């Protein structure tokens, strides 16, 4: 049986044990880098942030509210009461003109907001992933 002919070029392409070690090391480093630099996610508890005209006036960790609790918001022009529960937050009472915030449904997920224009108030739900993954930059209308 004739010995297969092998060119010198083919000899050069054949991986050595050292190459295999290098491949494993670089792949491991790349995967470690990928995990280290990825956007943080997870199931962190939700926090309610209340801002009035850009200033944070209150923060509440929803996990602390196993039963629904109503809290008045300080620093607003028209009295406003929030209802906090482990499930989410809503505006329970508001004396603001128009009452749009009162008609807004409760919010439950990170990235959702309730706005009260007359009070310049924003109620935001924040969590590990502050906004759900989306290919949309804004909603018009």
């Amino acid at each position, binding site marked *: 049986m004739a010995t297969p002919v092998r060119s010198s070029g083919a000899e050069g392409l054949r991986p050595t044990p050292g190459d295999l070690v*290098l491949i494993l090391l670089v792949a491991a480093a790349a995967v470690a880098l990928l995990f280290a630099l990825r956007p943080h996610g997870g199931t962190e508890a939700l926090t309610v942030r209340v801002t009035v005209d850009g200033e944070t006036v209150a923060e509440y960790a929803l996990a602390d509210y196993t039963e629904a609790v109503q809290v008045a918001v300080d620093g607003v022009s028209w009295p406003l009461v929030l209802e906090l529960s482990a499930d989410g937050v809503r505006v329970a009472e508001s004396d603001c003109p128009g009452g749009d915030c009162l008609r807004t449904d409760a919010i439950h997920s990170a990235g959702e907001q309730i706005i009260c224009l007359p009070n310049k108030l924003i109620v935001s739900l924040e969590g590990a992933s502050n906004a759900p993954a989306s290919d949309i930059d804004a909603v018009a209308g």
Partner: protein
Amino acid sequence: MKLNRTTPLLILLTVLLAGCSGAAQPESASRELFAMDTLMSLQISGPDGQEALDAAVTELQRLDALLDRNEPDSDLSRLNAAAGSGTPVALEEATLDVLEEALLCSADSGGAFDCTIAPVMDAWGFGGSGDNYRVPGDEELAALLPLVDSSALLVDRDAGTAQLTQAHMEVDLGGIAKGYAADSLTALLAEYEVSGALLDLGSSTMAALGERPGGGAWRIALRDPADAEQRLGVLSLQDQSLSTSGSYERYFTQDGVTYHHILDPETGYPAETGILSVTVVGENAALADAWSTALFVLGEDKALELWKSRDDFDYILCCFDGRVLVTEGLEDCFAFEGDAYGYTCEILRR
């Protein structure tokens, strides 16, 4: 350890995996603020992002202070207070700019857009903070309609003044001021090293400049006027502005009848033209802002006529009967999704 032809592959693998992390996103600065009676959101990317953002916020607050007719010391309040006095009022250049653009839109739309409609808006309660809605009587409206007259608003650029020639007239710039602000910010950002910006001036008016972070056109969903949780489609915009007017934005119900805030300057009543919403896209945000109101008032046929006579805007019109009409200039950048909710899409051509 010797290097051979597998080495470039390893380097490529490393680069690709590291690239997946998104670690190389451009610097981006963002802020929400209340101005012009709405919540605005600014997002600016690029080496000068934060500096440009600070300048943009300052400019928005300056324009808000000039153009708010509910603020006693504003340019607009001083103009309105002097109505019928015969005395021209000295105004800032920006105020004169907006007034001139408003007059131009009024003339070009045949009066469908008219910034002197304020007295009629107030009669309905649409001019204030939203707690005084009411249906004015026919006689009351008939008495107010003569005050809706753009020809009685005189602007003198050389003198830097304007005046309303009839007593009790008032100007409201709610239909154009946010668009003008978007144009001003666009010009301002050109002075900075900025790769992209999304200026969301209250959802109804937006300017999409340059590229979104990560590259490509900005992707802006268009809400279904019948349900805020649904969308008619997605617009991909780059260096363009949009403005939307819809009957769902501000309204009240009395005796089982719903009255919305887009008033017909000719009748004084909410415009009922079979339209739920109009979105106008163009390079000039002030024009887009004013045209979205005007097209809503004009209705489907006149809107088409107007579009055919001009080349500076396109539109998406959502009708009561479920048709979504899209002018051909937006055919390639609007991804229609309304079929999921019973809408049909038609492309309008010149």
